[in-house]
């Protein structure tokens, strides 16, 4: 009975996750020596380390993702606090819905919306000219900051939700008790609220980091040629170069990178993966 209930999930896991990964794993560990002749080789991974562009892009993607995650956390925390602790009743669900509404449109449309706002002939540069801030329209697309704006915007909900559930479970009397015993806003945040919300914070960070690292659309559209996102390299190898072996190797490197960073994050925050995942 249990197996029957789990069957769809298991089929999905096996067919769409495990099998393709095994296939990609095999692909990544072979090299083409002649047309239709392959032999086992680590050449793809060697290329990655020998070609600076690849591992520069790789490190840049990781760093930008960490920065995007941090900004998302900083922006989502006050929102989650407001929804979880300050607002009661109907307006609470209203605010949650407002966080959710942007996700009713597809990511492409949302990103195009940003492009309309930020491109040189767009709304925001025109507004700046009209206000006299800049003499001529400024191109606001194709900067790192633009990519970050897009990534944070896309990720917000995935940070807000686990934070709300973590903060809602915090007993208000703990905050009052700390205040009564001489704590102030900052020390209560650091010693009571953050330790309590830690599993939720880490859960939100993991989800947002994964989504950001693996995002293709937002960096490509908002960053243009300057984006240098690692997923673009994978896309290029598979689609443009038709070098599936190299693309597969890049895919595995990205998987390894995200796993490593999440592991380090868990170690640094002293959280356990199982507990954290229950909070998401």
């Amino acid at each position: 009975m249990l197996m029957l209930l789990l069957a769809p999930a298991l089929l999905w896991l096996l067919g769409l996750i495990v099998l393709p990964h095994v296939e990609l794993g095999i692909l990544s560990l072979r090299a083409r020596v002649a047309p239709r002749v392959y032999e086992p080789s680590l050449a793809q991974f060697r290329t990655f380390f020998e070609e600076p562009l690849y591992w520069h892009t790789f490190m840049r993607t990781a760093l930008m993702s960490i920065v995007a995650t941090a900004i998302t956390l900083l922006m989502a925390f006050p929102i989650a606090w407001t929804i979880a602790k300050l607002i009661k009743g109907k307006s609470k669900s209203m605010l949650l819905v407002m966080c959710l509404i942007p996700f009713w449109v597809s990511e492409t449309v949302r990103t195009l919306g940003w492009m309309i706002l930020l491109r040189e002939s767009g709304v925001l540069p025109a507004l700046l000219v009209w206000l006299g801030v800049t003499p001529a329209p400024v191109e606001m697309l194709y900067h790192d900051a633009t990519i970050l704006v897009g990534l944070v915007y896309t990720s917000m909900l995935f940070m807000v939700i686990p934070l709300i559930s973590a903060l809602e479970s915090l007993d208000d009397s703990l905050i009052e008790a700390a205040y009564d015993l001489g704590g102030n806003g900052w020390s209560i945040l650091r010693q009571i609220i953050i330790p309590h919300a830690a599993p939720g914070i880490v859960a939100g960070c993991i989800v947002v980091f994964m989504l950001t690292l693996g995002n293709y659309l937002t960096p490509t559209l908002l960053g243009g040629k300057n984006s240098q996102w690692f997923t673009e390299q994978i896309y290029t190898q598979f689609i443009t170069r038709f070098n599936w072996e190299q693309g597969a190797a890049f895919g595995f490197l990205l998987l390894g990178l995200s796993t490593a960073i999440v592991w380090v994050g868990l170690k640094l925050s002293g959280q356990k993966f199982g507990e954290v995942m229950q909070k998401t």
Partner: protein
Amino acid sequence: MAKHYGAFRAVDDLSFSVARGSFFSILGPSGCGKTTLLRMIAGFLEADSGEIHIGGKATRGVPPNKRPVNMVFQHLALFPMMSVGENVGYGLARRGVAKDEIKRRVGDMLERVSLPGAQAKRVDQLSGGQKQRVAIARSLVLEPTLLLLDEPLGALDLKLREHMKIELKQLQAAFGTTFVYITHDQSEALVLSDHVAVMNHGRFEQVGTPQQLYYEPQTPFVAGFVGANNRMAGRATEVKGGIVTVTSAQGLVMPARAIGKIAAGDAVEAFVRPEVARLARQAATLTDAGLPHFTARVDSLLFDGANSAVLLHEAQSNTEFRIALPQTGEFADLTVGETVSFGFDPQRAVCFAAGTTADEHVFS
């Protein structure tokens, strides 16, 4: 002082003082405003009018973290993310006390609340009573002028509650800190306190020692709320020498001592405590003792060990009375349906003009 929420007066024109080093309880039913009052003293709420002075200093505008007042919360609010030692040391650390000094004072404090060496324990490893002691230690280590306790025994089971009552009283005596304790449990208030304020609808009905509240209630509410009581509403048909003869609507005629001014013909409320009335099989026993007596039929027996009682219906008026069963064994064979006599000393029954509230009385 006063606190209003819109038209609702949570705390309505209160004025009282608590002697330094005493145990003061505020007793009242839920929703009477006692929590609001406590939160105003703690500083979580600001009074709409009036002033709170603590240790001679005005407190208006002083936030909770700057007041010489600490609070033990209803559910204790121990910090689960910290060890016992960190919990107790939290307030000291916030005051910037040196680490060694914190360690020493936390150790001393835990010893004084009989938890020596518990510093490294996690909060969830403690029993209910131990958590209670940690919560009190966490506040007392800051040597507050005033310790507020918000029904801290409410969440404990009966046996532990009885035990903690005694412990709280001993702790207060040992530390000499002023305790202000709020509760809806009259037994806690009576056992623990030097003085008790009975609160209802945002006002103090009466402030006094537990004995005064019990023996000399000043309002019908206090008479009904503190201890058990049989209540009779009726009219004063005769007033003579401080004793009122009350005639109830059902036709029961009983004497009671007048509290406040009562004239013949006034609507009144009379109270007789179950433990004041005497039960007898022969009416003669009561007449010999010089007590007015009534004949009644036993309706049910309420056995509860030392608090056993019997429910009677007075023969003429069918008024229900609850009378304590003496523990002498004399009535051990009492059966339902039996006819007995009961009587009481009119001096120990009290009578109020109907609708008397705290307004008409000056507190002693």
